[in-house]
Each structure stands twice: as C-alpha cells, then as structure tokens.
C-alpha cells in the first residue's frame, strides 16, 4: 500500500474541476455516461471525445504516482438519524398497514418504506377487503405519490391562469370571511367512506356553516345497484357477494371479479371454489355463466358465455325469471312478479335453459349478479330472484349502505343549483368533476367568472382546478391520517408514511382549517386551529367508538379496527310490494328494446380497466400495462367484432379512425377489432383525456392518449348509447398493442420452434390416437400446438387426470452434452421454482404492475411499445381459443369464443438456452437454479433473447429510466413522441427517483434484463436464515465445550415455505402463483409441481424450466 497522504486524498477529490465542468463530472463520476443520448448528434459526440481526451491526457500526465480523479464512485453522504427509533435499521424495509381508497371503498394494504420512502404496496393479509392481494391500481398508487405533475402548492386563478400562491394567501381571501352561516355554500366531495371527514362534517361544518349543502359525487359509484336494491327492499342497502359459497354463479352484464370495488375478495372467493388442487376425482368446481355485451375478464373465465347486446339483458332477465318459475318443480316466485311475467314470451335460448336448469338444481347454492351499468330495474329483479332462490343469507347478504343518496343525485343537485345561480361558494373536495361529469352541464368556469368562490382541493391541477378560483393541494393517501371502510364495512386505518411532499391537506384537514378560520374570524379562541391536523382529527373521530390507546395501537398495526372482523353486520331483508310495480314495468318496457343493427349500433361506455374514470391517467405504469383483453397500451379504442367491422367497411389495419355519432354528440375514435363481442355492439372505455387535452391539465404522461369517450355521454344514459351511427374518416390512428409481441404461438414463433425440434411434432403424440378418443377437446386447443396453454373440462380431467402431460409425447431422447456443474439435488441447497395455476389466473394484470414496481422496470412509452420494446419482465399472454374461422367471428356465434390468460415470466431453465449463446457469460446459472442476469457483463449482443424460446428477455434500447422526459429516438411515423419531444434531463428528477426499489439495480442502456424470481426477496430471507443456522451451530459448539460433550448436529434452519413471496405471487388476488424450494418436499411448489395438472411449457426443447404451469379446467354443464 502506498504511504497514506490524507491531504492529497482530499485534494484529489477537488481535482475533478480541473479537467472540465459539470458535463465532465457527470461522465466520469457515473459508471456509464449519463448523457449518451447527446452522442447521437455529431456535435455532442465531438464534445464527448474532447472530454474523454482530457481525462486520458490527465491520466497520462499524472502517471502512476499520482491518483487520477474521476473513476471513483461519486462522493456520498451518510445521514444517520439523530436518534434512531428502536428496531429501525438503515436499508431494511419497514411495512406499515394502511388503506388505499378508490370511489369510497377501502382496500387494506401494506406500504413498504425504505429509509423513509414508500416504495411498494402489498395487500394486507388480515384485511377482509384484500386478503393479502392488491389491485394494479393500488400497486401503482405509490407512483402517483411521486408524480412530478402533482400540484406543488395552492394556486389562484388570475386572468384565466393559475398563479402560485400560499395557504396563507388563500386564508386571507376576503370571500372566505363572507361565507357567513354557509348560505349558498356547496361542498361537493369525492365519494369517500372516511369516518374522519364525516366527523369533521358533523362537528365543524355543521356547527359553523349550518346552512351549507353537502353533496357526494364519484363517477364510479354503483348508482343503479343502489337504486335497484332500494326499490326491492325499501332502504339503501349494499349487497355483499360471497362467491366462495355459490356452486353456480350467473353474471348478467357483470364482472364481479374485476369491475367491482370488492373485486379482490370476489376473485379470491371465486377461485377458492374452483381451485382443483387435490386429486382429480374429488374435484368440485363452481360453474360460471356470463351474459354480456362486452368481453370482460369474468367472461373469459365463464364456463358458458353468452355474447348479447347490453340492451337485450332486461329481456334476458325476464325470460330467466319466467324459466325459473315455469313448469313442474319451478322456483316459487313472489306473486307480484309471477303475474308480471305472464306477458313475457320465451324465446329459444339454450344458454338460458342451462342457467335456469342449473339454478333450479342448486337452490340456495347459487348467485345471480348484475353489473353496475345495467338499469336499476334489472337489479331489482335479480335481487328478487336471489331471494326466491334462497341465496340471501348465503351467497349474498345485505349490509346498510353508507350513503342514502347516489352520485347522480349529488351532481344533479349541484347542476341545478349552478343553473339557478344559487351557488355563492363551492368547495370541491377531490375528484375532477369538470372532466368526469361534463355531461351534467356544470359550468364551473362561468360560476367562477360570475364571482362564486370556487375552490378545488386536489392532488393534480386538472381541468376542475383550472375552472375554479382557487386550487389547493390535497394530500396523497400515503401522506394522510384517516379511517375508511372496506366494501363490507370493515373500518380500516390510513396512516402516513411520509410528510406531505407539497404541503397538501386531506379533505378533513381542509374543512377543519376552514372552520377554525371561521372561529378566529369571530374573535374566539383559535384553539381549533391547532387541531386541524389529520392525526388529532382521526383520534377524535374514532373516540366515539370507544377508543383506548391500546386499541388504537393495535388497529394501527393491523390496519383494521378489529382484527378478524369482516365488516358490517348483515341485515334481514324483505321484499317491498312496490318492487313489482314501477321497476318491473320499466323492465318490461326495456325488454322491448330493438337489437342493435348496422345503422343503429349500441356502444357501451365502460370505465377503463386500468385508468378507471381517468383518475389514474397520469401513471405510466398503468398506461403501459397492456389492457387484459386488447393488450392495448397508452390508448383506448372502440372495440368491434370482426363481423361488425367488416359489415361497416372498416379496415382496421389501414384506416381505423371513425366518427361516432350519438344523438347530437360525436367523437372521432380508432377502432380495434376484438373477437367475442356481440354483433353491432361496440365497447369504448372512459378515462382517457383524448387527443386535444392540454398537458398542464392532464399531465405529461396522459397528454395525447386515447379518445375522450366522456364527450358522448348523456346524464340519461351514461353507460350505454343506442342508435349510434358510424362513418369512416379514411384516416388511420396508430395503436400500440402488445398482443403480438414476444409471441411463441404465432406462425413465426411456432415455425421457429418447429424448425428447432423438427420431426418432433409429427407423430410425437405417442398416445395420440388413444388420446383423441378420450379427448375431443384437443381440437379446440390453440391450433397446431406447441400447446403452450393446456385446458380441458372437469369431467375429462376426472377420467383422464394426466391429460396435461399427454399433449406431447415422450420427450425427445436427448443426451446432456455436459454434466451440470451444480448438484441441484443437494438437500443443503435451495432449488427455487415457481408454479403458475392457469385455472386460477383471471388475467387481471396486477402481477405485471407489482413486478414493475418491485424490479424498477421502466416505462418506455407508446412509440417504443409499438416497436415491441416494452420492458415488462412478466407478461400475460392472452390467447383466443376456437378454430380460426370461429375466432374471426364470421358466421359463428361469438359466444363460443374462449379466451385464456397465461402469465409468462422467466422460466429459469436448468438447461438455459440463453446461457449457452452469451459470448461474455453475462447470463449464468446459480447453485440455487436461478438463471442470473449480470447487467454489468452484458454487452448487448441480444443473442440470449434470440435464443430464448419463451421470449422473456427484455433489452434496454435507451436510458429508459429518464422518466417522462425520456429522450426519444425518432418516433415511428404517425406515432406521437412519448410523451413530448426529446428534452435533455441528465437523470430522473429527485422526486421520480424516490420510487425506485434500492434493492434492485437500475439498468442502463444496452443491457439485457429479465425476471430474476425476485432474487432480492430471496436474499432478504435466505441470508438471515443462514445467519441463524451458523449462530445455532456456534452456540451448540460452545455449549458442548462447556458441558464437555460431543457436539450435536444442529437441526437445519432454512427459509420456511411461503416466507419468500415473489412480487407477482404476493399481489395475485387468486393465488395463481406459488414460489418455493423444490428440495423441500412439503413446500407448496413441490406439491404443485407433482400435481397431474402441471406441465412444462415447450418440454420438447428439454430446457427443463423451473417455472411450470398447471393446466386450466372448465366446468361446463353436461347435458343429460
């Protein structure tokens, strides 16, 4: 070692100024040049060479006895706590139980904090609304905390522009003092179940502004359901579905597994009732019937699906009721209903016959659900039928509804007040009604210019903010104290993980602040001003329910107020006589609706499965998440069946842009063809800001995405348009869909695979003939094989339990070219593996977002997605099933189409094809069977990806982590640059960087990456386990020495099964994933891998994948 020279070492650091300026430091201090995008243009390249030249010259000059500055890591500071809380260790994750609320329904989550930064959301296992799972939206909610477009502070509208102001400026506004008793003061609150807001409303608002009017509004509330149940039972009730208790589930225009606030619980209950994990002969599976005008994820799970226009569902409901009551052994229907049904004529409908027969055979053991966008009268009928079938109290119970009014009533009241000039002041607490309730004709801008004191509290400065006199920043839920309720009514706590980043306040804090101001204005003690903090308000609100310090702390730990409580007590229900008058008359008249035709299309307007009503539109993770069925990213589109598109003359490949006209409203929108939809029925999702949106209103990510379907809505029929006409524009709009990306089963992918295993396919189904005889289903599988996805019917499975293995003959006789250097069977080692149960997967995509959050996977933007460069480590392949003619929907009933979902992560092959072709050994095997990817060795040949039969490798073509200011390459023609033209940002902003998981390397340009089985999570558990093992050995040794006896063998301490959960596994609502150690025969994954339904994808390649699939089962009704 050279002699130490402290002086020179310190000086050495400052030498970096010598060579060059900021650019230089950027270059030399970082491992990879962070501005390499500049190299693209020759000017920058010259500068780069100059800089580089300078550094080399310096190195030469200084020689060996001096130390050249630069190639050391950047100078880092370490900032320890001044007083560290007990049990907190730097760099170690801490989880806090909190609640994520959407449209007034809470989902229990665990938020992971790394050194004070929330970085990941998981489900809360003890919460009755989440069962340990989390939705894609909850997963992405951590990204919204660090959204650079979040409002950074209060702002006032001056001359049509928002000007930055402070909270003090707002409180000094004279109009605040003029609020008086609250005459003409309207509060429009985004629907929330917050007990704290309720408390503040009662104790503060009611006291200081007694004449104010409170209204609730959220576009996603289930108004029709609310009205329908109220009509049936005479009071506002909330139906609680228990899908695990139903043997037969019938969904009318409904997707309870995804499109429901309680979807996580539903999905879990549903999959529990058809898990089929035990031995084949004892399987019992529920049966799902779905009739829908869209293609929903529940529809893809259905055992019998009926594609039918939404407008025909009322008739379907009535016919079902009549079939249930008809003939011998019919269900006893209420007299009022039976009388009305007399006029109903039955049409031929085998689907309905099967449903009715099944329901009659499973009295008290079934469930009928109806979608939130179906008319209230259909809800009334269905709840009546559930009661008649004996399902109430079993698969469906009722709890008191938290609100007696609906959103529609709320927004209508406001619209009326605005029109009548009754609004003196308007406080909009959250939401974005200017965009999402446009059809109600709320002219906030006009009210503001007329002098109304309009205030918008919101996390974003959106359309509503810009129409109001004041915008105030709202706190994110990860910055807030609150107490909210799940769908079932379980009280859940929300606690902050971080101080409000931009001084935002919660709705309750804001109201408390206003009330406190009022008190100060009156000249009384300003004591209340001190209590305007979320924590005190929450404690105050919960005190009413008997709050003890212990109960509070326990609830804070668990996230739910009472552990084990499932929610509100169910109430007894009794049918109202009036349920058979007005609602049934309405239904009968609706049943006469004409079927849609070429000149009168029917278009369903549905909340986007990713962005919902648009509230998540600025989240790149959700924008880039392929929509589960269309696999569309960054856009919505008008979905039409192939036959309809053909009939209308739409060439969706060349000129997909069409003009829709509904009444007086029209919209230009791109068409995407989706098989499985009923004829002349379109589906268009809401939530996209459209092509004309302004960046300052919608955010840099959302701008220019999709088509604004809200423009077509009317208050009378917000969810469905009938009599729609369509005209062609002759123009094309480029859509970025990933449905053909990373294909294994397409012609190209299959051809390649066949070439490699040439001769293997032909005749390799050794048992083919025997198999065929017992297995008619085979022909219906993905045509031609290689049978990536395998499924059969329950009855087939029972006769033929190892059907999954029979899809391919015996594996080719192969000789290993070399001995594996790793003894995988060594019981001292772990042998990690993953099982994916295709029978459980519903294709929701939560795992994809969870993986993205966990593994710092970048968002690449639409233009790159269109080039097939999306970076998701885990993709969900969606296959349509049916013969090609059927899939194209030409003359064949779209109801017969089947859709399957297959999540594809890295298979972690034992004979990994990627490894043998890497020239630099950048991908090699670990002793635990992981196919390690070494980013730093990778030189970007991409040979590995070429050679991967499963197409799970992803290449960084750019510095993808530069966030929204992504330096784009040249955009594809016709595609907008994402999201705006290239701008030079040296690295991610301070804020955006905070979402990164510090346990995972952030990859750079030119590097291959792929699923690692969440190796950071493996290490997080396996290192401490080994530590414990070593410590136990040492203790035993010491004890033996002390007691003068031979050392005993210490029992093996290993990671317990289930202790390590991959990100995808943890968030999965249906527990489709199981990860664990194959060397532990008792582990879940060992049991699953040994299960007869398990198969290896592309087994014929002898790659020996550790990730294996369990074949899917369906349970169609066997006709007697």
């Amino acid at each position: 070692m050279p002699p130490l020279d402290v002086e020179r070492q310190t000086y050495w650091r400052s030498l970096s100024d010598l060579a060059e300026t900021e650019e230089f430091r950027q270059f030399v201090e970082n491992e990879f040049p962070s501005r390499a995008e500049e190299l693209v243009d020759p000017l920058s390249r010259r500068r780069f060479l100059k800089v580089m030249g300078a550094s080399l010259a310096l190195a030469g000059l200084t020689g060996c006895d001096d130390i050249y500055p630069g190639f050391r890591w950047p100078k880092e500071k370490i900032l320890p706590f001044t007083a560290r809380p007990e049990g907190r260790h730097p760099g170690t994750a801490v989880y806090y139980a909190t609640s994520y609320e959407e449209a007034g329904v809470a989902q229990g989550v665990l938020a992971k904090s790394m050194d004070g930064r929330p970085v990941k959301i998981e489900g809360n296992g003890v919460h009755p609304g989440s069962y340990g799972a989390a939705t894609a939206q909850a997963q992405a909610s951590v990204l919204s905390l660090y959204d650079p477009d979040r409002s950074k502070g209060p702002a006032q509208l001056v001359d049509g522009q928002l000007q930055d102001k402070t909270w003090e400026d707002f409180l000094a506004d004279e109009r605040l003092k003029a609020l008086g008793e609250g005459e003409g003061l309207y509060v429009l609150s985004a629907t929330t179940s917050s007990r704290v807001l309720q408390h503040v409303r009662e104790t503060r608002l009611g006291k200081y502004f007694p004449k104010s009017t409170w209204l609730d509004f959220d576009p996603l509330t289930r108004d029709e359901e609310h009205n329908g149940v109220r009509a049936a039972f005479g009071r506002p009730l909330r139906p609680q579905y228990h899908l695990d208790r139903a043997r037969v589930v019938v969904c009318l225009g409904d997707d309870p597994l995804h499109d429901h606030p309680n979807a996580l619980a539903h999905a879990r209950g549903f999959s529990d009732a058809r898990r089929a994990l035990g031995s084949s002969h004892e399987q019992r599976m529920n049966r799902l019937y779905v009739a829908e005008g869209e293609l929903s994820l529940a529809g893809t799970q259905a055992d019998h699906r009926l594609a039918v226009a939404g407008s025909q569902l009322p008739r379907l409901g009535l016919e079902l009721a009549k079939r249930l009551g008809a003939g011998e052994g019919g269900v006893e229907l209420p007299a009022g209903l039976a009388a009305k049904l007399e006029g109903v004529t039955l049409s031929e409908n085998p689907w309905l016959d099967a449903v009715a027969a099944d329901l009659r055979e499973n009295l008290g053991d079934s469930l009928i659900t109806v979608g939130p966008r179906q008319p209230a009268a259909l809800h009334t009928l269905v709840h009546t039928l559930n009661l008649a079938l004996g399902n109430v109290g079993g698969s469906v119970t009722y709890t008191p509804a938290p609100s007696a009014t609906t959103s529609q009533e709320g927004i209508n009241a406001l619209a009326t007040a605005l029109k009548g000039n009754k609004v003196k002041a308007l406080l909009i607490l959250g939401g974005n009604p200017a965009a999402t309730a446009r059809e109600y004709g709320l002219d906030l801008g006009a009210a503001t210019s007329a002098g109304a004191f309009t205030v918008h509290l919101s996390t974003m400065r959106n359309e509503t903010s810009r129409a109001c006199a004041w915008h105030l920043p709202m706190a994110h839920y990860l910055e807030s104290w609150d107490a909210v309720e799940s769908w079932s009514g379980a009280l859940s706590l929300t606690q902050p993980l971080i101080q409000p980043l931009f001084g935002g306040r919660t709705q309750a804090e804001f109201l408390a602040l206003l009330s406190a101001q009022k008190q100060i204005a009156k000249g009384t003690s300003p004591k209340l001003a001190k209590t305007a903090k979320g924590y005190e308000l929450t404690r105050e609100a919960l005190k009413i329910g008997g709050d003890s310090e212990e109960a509070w702390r326990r609830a804070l730990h668990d996230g739910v107020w009472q552990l084990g409580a499932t929610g509100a007590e169910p109430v007894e229900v009794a049918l109202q006589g009036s349920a058979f008058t007005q609602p049934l008359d309405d239904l009968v008249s609706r049943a006469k609706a004409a079927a849609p035709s070429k000149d009168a299309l029917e278009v369903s307007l549905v909340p986007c499965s990713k962005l919902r009503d648009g509230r998540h539109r600025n989240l790149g993770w959700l924008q880039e998440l392929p929509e589960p069925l269309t696999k569309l990213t960054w856009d919505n589109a008008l979905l039409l069946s192939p036959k309809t598109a053909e009939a209308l003359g739409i060439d969706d490949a060349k000129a997909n842009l069409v003009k829709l006209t509904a009444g007086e409203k029209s919209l230009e929108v791109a068409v995407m063809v989706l098989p499985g939809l009923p004829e002349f029925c379109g589906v268009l999702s809401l939530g996209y800001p459209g092509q004309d949106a302004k960046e300052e209103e919608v955010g840099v990510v959302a701008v220019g995405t999709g088509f604004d379907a809200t423009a077509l809505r009317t208050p009378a029929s917000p969810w469905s348009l009938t009599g729609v006409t369509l005209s062609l524009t002759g123009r094309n709009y480029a859509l970025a869909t990933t449905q053909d990306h990373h294909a294994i089963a397409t012609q190209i992918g299959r051809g390649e695979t066949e070439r490699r295993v040439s001769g293997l396919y032909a005749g390799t189904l050794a048992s083919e003939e025997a198999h065929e005889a017992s297995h008619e289903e085979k022909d219906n599988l993905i045509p031609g094989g290689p049978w990536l996805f395998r499924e059969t019917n329950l009855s087939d499975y029972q006769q033929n339990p190892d059907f999954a293995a029979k899809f391919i003959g015996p594996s080719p006789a192969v000789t290993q070219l070399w001995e594996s250097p790793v003894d995988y069977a060594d019981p001292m080692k772990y042998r990690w593996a993953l099982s994916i149960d295709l029978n459980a997967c519903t294709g929701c995509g939560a795992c994809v977002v969870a993986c993205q959050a966990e593994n710092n996977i970048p968002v690449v933007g639409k233009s790159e997605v269109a080039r097939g460069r999306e970076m998701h480590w885990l993709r969900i392949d969606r296959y349509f099933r049916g013969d090609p003619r059927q899939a194209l929907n030409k003359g064949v009933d779209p109801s017969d189409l089947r859709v399957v979902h297959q999540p594809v992560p890295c298979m972690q092959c034992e004979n990994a094809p990627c490894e043998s072709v890497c020239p630099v050994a950048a991908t090699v095997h670990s002793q635990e069977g992981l196919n390690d990817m070494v980013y730093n060795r990778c030189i970007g040949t991409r040979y590995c990806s070429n050679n991967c039969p499963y197409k799970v490798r992803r290449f960084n073509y750019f510095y993808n982590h530069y966030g929204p200011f992504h330096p784009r390459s040249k955009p594809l023609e016709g595609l907008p640059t994402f999201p705006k033209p290239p701008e030079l940002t040296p690295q991610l902003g301070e804020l955006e960087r905070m979402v990164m998981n510090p346990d995972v390397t952030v990859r750079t340009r030119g590097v291959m990456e792929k699923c690692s089985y969440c190796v950071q999570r493996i290490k997080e558990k396996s290192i401490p386990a080994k530590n414990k093992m070593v410590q136990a050995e040492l203790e035993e040794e010491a004890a033996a020495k002390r007691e003068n006896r031979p050392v005993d063998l210490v029992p093996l301490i290993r990671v317990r099964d289930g202790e390590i959960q991959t990100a995808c596994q943890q968030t999965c609502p249906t527990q489709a994933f199981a990860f664990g150690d194959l060397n532990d025969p008792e582990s879940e994954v060992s049991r699953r891998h040994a299960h007869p339904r398990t198969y290896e994808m592309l087994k014929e390649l002898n790659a020996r994948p550790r990730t294996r699939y369990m074949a899917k089962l369906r349970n169609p009704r066997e006709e007697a």
Partner: protein
Amino acid sequence: MLVAYGASPKTLAVGYAPEQPVPYSHKLHVGELGLDCRYCHTSVEETAKANIPPTSTCMNCHSMIRKESPLLAPVRESFASGQPVEWVRVHSVADYAYFNHSAHVTRGVGCVSCHGRIDTMDVVYQTQPLSMSWCVDCHRHPERSLRPASEVTNMTWQPPNGQDPYEFGKSYAEQHSINPPTDCSTCHR
C-alpha cells in the same frame, strides 16, 4: 498500461480518506478507549448495513465528556436541531453490488479483513480495493480471512497456540461448512 493502472481500484480507491464534518478518531475511541465496533455499528450482525450511529449514540458519552469541545459542535448542533451529521462515506461498493455485513460477520470474517486496522486510524481511510476481484478472491479462498465468530471485532486476533492462520481458517471453514457462493446473484441483483 498506464491508463489501466491509473483506473484500477487498487490505485484509485485505496487510501481514500475524505475529510469528515467531525474529526472522529477511531484510534482514540477503539484503539485507546477500547470501544467495541458494535457499540456504534449496531446492526452489523443482523442486517446488510453496519450503519453509522445516530447522533444520540455520540451524546451518550459526550453529554458528559468534553461537553464544550468546539470539535464536537456539529454533533451537539445535530442533537439539538434533529438534523443529521453529514458523514462522508469512505467504504463504498458499486450500487449494483449488494454487500451484506451480517452474512460475513456471523461466519467469522473479521472487520479488519476489509476495513484494516481501524483502531490505528485517526482519519478512516480505505485499505483494501473493495473491487470485484478482491471480493471473489476471498469467496474462493475464505480460509484466508476466517476466525471464530466471537473474535470478529478483534483487531489483533491471532489463532490460538501459535496455529497458522491459514490452517485455522481451513479447518474452521470445513467445520462450519463455509462455502461462500460465487454465483452472480450472490452480490448482484
């Protein structure tokens, strides 16, 4: 050649001794006063990071000893204000390498193996390159750096009875099945 040598961690990193906001002397505290490493670096046996002590740890003693020392002013200030002392990191591996202290300390790799004779340093400096080849050398031949786990913080440990350290390490590794993996994912994630 010159450039290669100039850029090697052996040249660049070894000897790095940045100036710290408080001239804390390990020589005084460890070498002369005999503080155990774990008094301050509390989590070294349990977690990946050994951790830099919070200000309150300093104040355990310095609220009574050398209360007025001007050198300790930043510590007192930090304790009063709640703002952390901004220490400068000395030992640093690349962000894509995930070193875990607990995995090494519990297996009997002494602090001195990587950090050198901290007990003789007035200003902490880096004594080892902390480069990948240096890490891998030890993972391939752990016997060179092993000692009883109870002696990891001992700066001057020698094997008992004049045993050769290498021989000791060899038998220790065998006895406790210490086979450090050289898988890529051992350190890189």
